[in-house]
């Protein structure tokens, strides 16, 4: 595990170099252990892909006890050591996300299908047929970065981002797929839309997905999409 400063109020622990389920599992174990230990002066913990970033408040570390960065590094190392080897299979959760593909709700499905050399329906079926893993939540509140997109569907971002992407839009960017929880600008290729709310401040937790969740997309008709509203 490599520990480095992220400015004067956070430490980044890097637990691997690639994007793979085993690295993510170590990252999640470490993040959980840090969060559970509730160390003094530790204010937040962010797991993402191969890193755990631990935010601290330097004001809460007495200078007489030594350098705050060193203290936080020791704390993170001890949390990680305690958890190492403990078996943990992601979150063990699989979340089913209904998606209406193509048409007005997925205006870029045609382009993605054309690049893959298949009909739109086949591209949608391929997107639905895969198992995805949530590697991180970020970009926007509740936005999941999903790994596991079949290679045929890999498509670069749009040259010009849209100024407005609707909430629930399911997108593709390179080898990643994700879902916009809130209306926002965005450059991902939009292949469909889910009626599920991926983020709601009134809900606890506010984000539907957490890193380590598995995701399955399920194709629904426009009529079924409309009936969710």
């Amino acid at each position, binding site marked *: 595990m490599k520990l480095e400063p992220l*400015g004067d109020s956070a430490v980044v622990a890097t637990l691997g170099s690639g994007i793979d389920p085993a690295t993510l599992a170590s990252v999640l174990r470490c993040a959980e252990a840090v969060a559970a230990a509730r160390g003094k002066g530790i204010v937040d913990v962010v797991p*993402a892909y191969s890193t755990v970033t631990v935010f601290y408040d330097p004001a809460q570390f007495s200078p007489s006890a030594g350098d705050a960065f060193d203290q936080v590094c020791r704390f993170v190392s001890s949390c990680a050591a305690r958890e190492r080897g403990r078996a943990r299979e992601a979150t063990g959760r699989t979340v089913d996300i209904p998606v209406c593909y193509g048409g007005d709700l997925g205006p870029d499905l045609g382009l993605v299908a054309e690049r893959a050399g298949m009909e739109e329906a086949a591209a949608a079926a391929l997107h639905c047929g895969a198992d995805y893993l949530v590697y991180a939540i*970020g970009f926007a509140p509740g936005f999941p970065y999903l790994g596991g997109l079949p290679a045929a569907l890999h498509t670069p971002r749009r040259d010009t981002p849209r100024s407005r992407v609707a909430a629930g839009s399911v997108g593709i960017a390179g080898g990643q797929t994700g879902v916009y929880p809130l209306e926002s600008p965005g450059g991902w290729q939009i292949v469909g839309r889910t009626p599920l709310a991926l983020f709601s401040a009134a809900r606890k937790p506010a984000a539907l997905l957490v890193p380590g969740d598995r995701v399955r997309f399920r194709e629904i008709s426009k009529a079924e999409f409309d009936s969710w509203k």
Partner: protein
Amino acid sequence: MEVSVIRAGMLTTVQDLGRRGHLAEGVPMGGAADPFALRVANLLVGNPEDSPGLEITLTGPELEFSEAGWVAVCGARFEGMPAWRPFHVEAGGRLRFGRLLQGCRAFLSVSGGFDVEPVLGGRGTFPAAGLGGFQGRALRGGDILKSSPSRGAPTGHWSIDERILPHYSNEPGVRVVPGLHAGDYGDALHSGRFEVTLESSRMGIRLSGPRLMRPGGGDLVSAAVAPGTIQVPPDGNPIVLMADAQTLGGYPRVAHVIAADLPLVAQLAPGDSLRFVRTTLAEAHALVHAREHNLGLLRQGLAEKIRPA
């Protein structure tokens, strides 16, 4: 007390000191872009320092107060507006901001603090997600804010020791510690001044100046970023991430503005410039302790100057 918004100004939002514990859900810390100014504004009117106040950007609002009370405005300075000291407003009185004299963001606290519901552990506004603050959005003319009961009233004649204030400037030297990818950029970040562009916001201060080009490049795996992180997109123009920045970033991080100097960046308006000065983590932490020590002295001093309600 009710505070009616007659005119909102360019961008006025309710802000506190931000959220904790929701970064992993993609919710930024948010809160005051210049937390020091908000903390002092609150202390000056007898509030806990994390009480919600107004963050006022470039042009000030016009506000009407339903009852008499105390107000403090800290951070950016406006013509005709007392700065860094509490002043009394009458029942039915109106507060108008003149022209901006210095800085970019002023923080207004009323005795008692604005009464808004906490959302995800914070009372600050995050307009991109429509959450927190007053209805999840910037204030508009016609809005009516409520304040909580006052906890005290300032007495006597005194003024704050200005030596504890940040050295605000429209061309500051801002101290940074190196980022993970500092080595890829050589001395470029320190080779000249950078100008603040019009595209700057609470998400990030976008700069133009010497281009920061990275040999090779290649994609990075997204990881957490923080307010103060200086990211370099492929066009070579650095961005200093601010309170509402997204929680993960995939661009190289050349450096990080230290916490003690982030208020200096928050007070830069488009057209202002800055240069980056190297410092160490130890110095950055020492400056945080010095700031807390000064705020401690201010709290002690104010304990005798504010009569409990």
